[in-house]
């Protein structure tokens, strides 16, 4: 029997950007893209961690512009599809047009899980530019499965080619992943992608749950490099999927090599589940808040876990990094 195909999307350079404080330069990007391309990763995502135009006080400034990053990747990419992320409200259609002209072929348009209707312009623009488009829902743990499915249908109606479901807080257990992925798979007629965070050490397990529930695309990063405790570790995922009888089209040895030889040397810290990222998952907080929370905790002399619990209680969504300062300031002056 033919093995079931799982499409892998590597986001070491995009989600991993959070873990290296957005320091990627063309010199760092090129060997990663080259290695991933040669290993056979189908999609390679490149941008600031918060997507196009994410370089800011709020999310951290990038060492390179979007244009420099995408051009660098385009220069060395072969068969893999060069992918970018855009968050409506942060970047505009002009930004998308610009990176398409630099060689981007795929765009993922991301909104909070309840706000799909702000993505219409950008999805339609992506299609008009001849790009493959994913409609991307963040923080899927925060609502019931039916709501995720409803919003996925909205994205499909705008012309998305596949749906990405992100457990942005790494808060879901496998059952929660299964329930949400099945609901979306049942609701739409396009493929479903799952994006895990490893805050509760469940990224790979949750990926297996997603695949069992019908997802055919998975996001991953070398060494798991990413926001919070990181993402599903690419080279591990490749091995696991192979053992489980799926076809990823990725060369397992080459995948391990790029992780160990190219990405590991540029990491600023091992990608492990420390206490604060564990709190992200536990309290359901957006993973890229992590390093900003460490900084605020230090500045205001607070325990980062207390800040994260309060952010979770306030139900802050992706993009609200500024509220970390607000919470820390209010706690300090209570």
């Amino acid at each position, binding site marked *: 029997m033919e093995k079931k195909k799982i499409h892998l999307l590597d986001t070491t350079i995009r989600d991993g950007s959070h873990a290296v404080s957005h320091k990627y330069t063309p010199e760092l990007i090129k060997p990663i893209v080259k290695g991933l391309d040669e290993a056979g990763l189908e999609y390679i995502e490149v941008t600031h961690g918060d997507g196009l135009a994410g370089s800011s006080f709020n999310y951290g400034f990038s060492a390179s512009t979007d244009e420099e990053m995408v051009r660098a990747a385009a220069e060395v990419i072969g068969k893999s599809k060069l992918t970018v992320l855009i968050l409506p409200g942060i970047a505009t259609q002009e930004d998308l047009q610009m990176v398409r002209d630099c060689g981007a072929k795929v765009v993922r348009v991301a909104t909070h899980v309840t706000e799909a209707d702000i993505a219409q312009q950008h999805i339609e623009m992506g299609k008009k530019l001849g790009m493959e488009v994913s409609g991307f829902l963040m923080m899927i743990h925060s609502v019931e499965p039916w709501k995720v499915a409803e919003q996925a249908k909205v994205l499909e109606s705008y012309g998305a080619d596949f749906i990405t479901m992100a457990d942005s807080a790494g808060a879901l257990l496998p059952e929660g992943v299964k329930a949400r992925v099945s609901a979306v798979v049942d609701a739409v007629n396009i493929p479903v992608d799952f994006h895990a965070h490893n805050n509760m050490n469940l990224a790979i397990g949750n990926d297996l749950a997603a695949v069992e529930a019908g997802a055919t695309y998975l996001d991953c990063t070398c060494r798991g490099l990413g926001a919070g405790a990181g993402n599903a570790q690419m080279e591990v995922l490749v091995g696991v999927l192979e053992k489980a009888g799926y076809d990823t089209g990725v060369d397992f040895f080459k995948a391990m090599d790029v992780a160990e030889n190219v990405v590991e040397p540029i990491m600023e810290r091992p990608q492990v589940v420390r206490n604060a990222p564990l709190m992200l998952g536990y309290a359901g907080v957006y993973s890229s808040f992590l390093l900003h929370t460490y900084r605020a905790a230090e500045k205001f002399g607070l325990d980062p876990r207390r800040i994260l619990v309060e952010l979770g209680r306030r139900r802050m*969504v992706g993009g609200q990094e500024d509220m970390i300062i607000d919470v820390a300031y209010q706690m300090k002056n209570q």
Partner: protein
Amino acid sequence: MDKIKVAVIGPGNIGSDLMYKILRSKNLEMSLMAGVVESEGIKRARSLGIEASTEGVKAVLENKDVQIVFDATGAKHHLIHAPLLKEAGKIAIDLTPAAVGPYVVPSVNMGEIQNETNYNMVTCGGQATVPIVYAISQAAGAKYAEIVASISSKSAGPGTRQNIDEFTQTTAKALELLGGAKRGKAIIVLNPAEPSIMMTNTIYVDVEEPDEKKITAAVEDMVARMQKYVPGYQLRVPPIVDGTKVTTIIQVEGAGDFLPTYSGNLDIINAAAIEVAERLAENM
């Protein structure tokens, strides 16, 4: 002094809230509510004893007494209304993104543009953040200003949602043109939390001279000026100076005239539009 007669075109949520604000005004008289169908807003106006018409801009043009017109329709409609209103000698206060006339943020540039025939109200985020950027740029010089406007999902209407780029682009432009920043950037985040979050704005400025005392005094002074026409405008986090980076957080609680108090974003643009009309009325 006689009250200046005004009209509102567009009897939706914004238009209805404007109507209640006008009813509270000492200088403005709510003469006409104009829409295109027998909507709730039209009925609401009539129930308050206000003349209402479904003839749209035509009804406004035919009303000789109306001197100031609030346009709360959409950009496409305002582009049609603007020349007609001008020809009829009426001053337009434009709450759409059409940007026919100059941007106005009352606490910043009203004094400089008293003789225009069309005023554009920028965006809700612009009304909330441009004053702070202006205060800081006056006190310390602004190389770069970046704002993050967080609003409750419920207060973001279809107009904002279908054209969210307009918000980021217009607001960024106003941070430069009116705020005085050499470069501006705007971010908007919608949050669906229940109970709904208050509109919150974070303003980051990269300054030339990080004099904390001077910056804090300028911001506090501006907040006091804003509170005169937006009572729910509050400083949540006073300026934090970190090197040349200044971080300030503002919260806007709505007056609750017609819209719920959490939608400070809708309240502030309406309150600013009323302030423009009040200032014009003083000189009429």
